């Protein structure tokens, strides 16, 4: 995969696949998509200055909750990862960990110009410039910073896209994992790995494709010592397994 891949990549829709087949499954898919779009939980992760416009958007004046959108504290239960502004490299690592922890289907919204192309900090040594190099982004809301109205409009657009079955960026992460991993490795070093086994998940979701594996995932397998990442994080010595 080359670096100048166009984004978003056109992906086959599950709804379209079902068109030839069972009517009930198609109706069921559409119903699921509709329900999904009406109950979205946003992960609370304020990465940059755009986060200051979220409290007004969430509370009484603009009131996101009337759209069925409310904040959620745990990535496991959240649907939307809202990247509110510039991400420094240190933050991006945490963002990647968080993104991979979220259950699919998951949606990423990049708020602020800084996520689109680096914005104000285009020449800063500390920030990552284009968010969609590292994870698939479903929607960008540009502005420095976007007003709460813009945030709400963006979220409504996302709701529409979900209902129509078009917000499928998360599938792209599994289909082209090698590309995203390569960009991450360029920033974090070749030994970069997260505790999530994305390849196994890709197989689980039936999204394993020709571009899931590549030279970057090979590096990952080469460097991967399955228990080490977690052990290092806990600061423990060699694992002592509990005798069962």
């Amino acid at each position: 995969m080359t670096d100048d891949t166009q984004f978003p990549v056109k992906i086959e829709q599950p709804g379209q696949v079902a068109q030839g087949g069972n009517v009930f499954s198609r109706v069921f898919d559409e119903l699921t998509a509709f329900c999904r779009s009406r109950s979205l939980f946003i992960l609370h992760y304020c990465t940059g200055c755009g986060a200051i416009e979220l409290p007004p958007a969430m509370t009484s004046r603009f009131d996101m909750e009337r759209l069925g959108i409310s904040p959620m504290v745990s990535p496991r239960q959240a649907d939307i990862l809202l990247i509110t502004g510039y991400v420094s490299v240190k933050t991006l690592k945490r963002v990647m960990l968080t993104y991979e922890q979220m259950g699919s289907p998951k949606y990423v919204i990049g708020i602020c110009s800084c996520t689109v192309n680096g914005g104000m900090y285009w020449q800063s040594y500390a920030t990552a410039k284009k968010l969609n190099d590292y994870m698939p982004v479903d929607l960008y809301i540009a502005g420095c910073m976007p007003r709460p109205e813009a945030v709400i409009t963006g979220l409504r657009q996302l709701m529409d896209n979900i209902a129509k079955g078009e917000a499928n960026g998360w599938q792209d992460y599994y289909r082209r994992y090698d590309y995203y991993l390569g960009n991450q490795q360029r920033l974090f070093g070749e030994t970069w790995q997260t505790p999530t086994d994305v390849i196994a998940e890709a197989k689980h979701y039936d999204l394993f494709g020709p571009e899931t594996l590549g030279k970057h995932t090979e590096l990952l397998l080469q460097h991967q010592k399955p228990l080490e990442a977690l052990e290092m994080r806990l600061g423990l010595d060699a694992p002592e397994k509990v005798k069962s």
Partner: protein
Amino acid sequence: MRAENYEARNHPPSNEFEINFGPNHPGIEGNYALKVKVHGDEIVAARADGGYLHRGFEKLMEQRLWIQNIALVPRICVPDPAPMEVAYSMAVEQLCGLDVPVRAQWLRVLQLELSRVAAHLFTFGGHAATTGMYTPMFWGVADRDLLLDLFEELTGGRVYSIYNIPGGVRRDVPDGFLERLSTTLDYIDSRLPDYDNLLFTNQVFVTRAKGTGPITQAQALDWGVTGPNLRATGLAFDVRRDDPYLVYDELDFDIPTEQPGDAWARTLVRRNELLQSIRILRQIIDRLPGVAGPIRAPIPNPLAWRVPAGEAYVRIESSKGELGWYVVSDGSEKPHRVHVRGPSSMHAVQVLEHLVTGCRIEDVAQIMFSLDACPPEVDR
């Protein structure tokens, strides 16, 4: 997930656990983290872990023109951006020996005090939310929005106004602005008894905030604590009064202080400061129409502006504490070196680490909000 990561393990030999408090945590202010070691739910050690918001401001500013930096500086502190622009502009004016017209000085004070009211409303809403009371937070954010509307009318921007330029301000007050400001101030004034009922006389808040995270006056002075956090220990120090800048020496206001220096006192000081800011704004409403004159001193072509060589240090009082700007020019089109002495880097690193040690884990968020530290300003 990899199955092997989920195997049951022996516990570590002691009963102490290390927990990452943040950066992705609803109780932390902004993108900031604390690594805490807990024994049960008591914290035995804490380590501040910043840098998530680092953008390298001081380096970025060296690469941009003097005038371009105006757009950059408010981003240093997001909830209270106005003092950054004002202080930077004042530093450049000091280097060039520019005299700022009196009317521009009044307008700057207007902007600074509006920003202070907005920031304080936000903070005590946030402090209330960390003790489980969400109503003051909803109210605080909604009332702050009224001020943001005024900002938008005055400057064109809701949060980042970029209202100042070296030499003055960009525009004058629009027609009818002062009346609308006065109405908004009356409204916020009338809301304060409600805040008192909900927060400052609320038994839940009193019980949780009183005695939490105390600082003595001697410690505060040793650690470089400034602003409302210092005044909560009983010392009436305020740059606006003790080293007046702009037109603060013509204005009449008090410096509220409280005694014990705990979370309760810090938030109460902010509430009382809000009243004083409203008082200042009312004086501005009365006196601004009587101050005539230009709003901007002429400056040379800003795209080829060579600021004379020299150094300048400016300090002003932001809503978080004393804010200092040190700017060095080597006579070129760009600053040679810029350093920001932000109040939050003291509050959120050494003070916070010290205060959370020994307290319980549920008070960490409360202490952080009561210190009103601003993570983007810590990291810069």
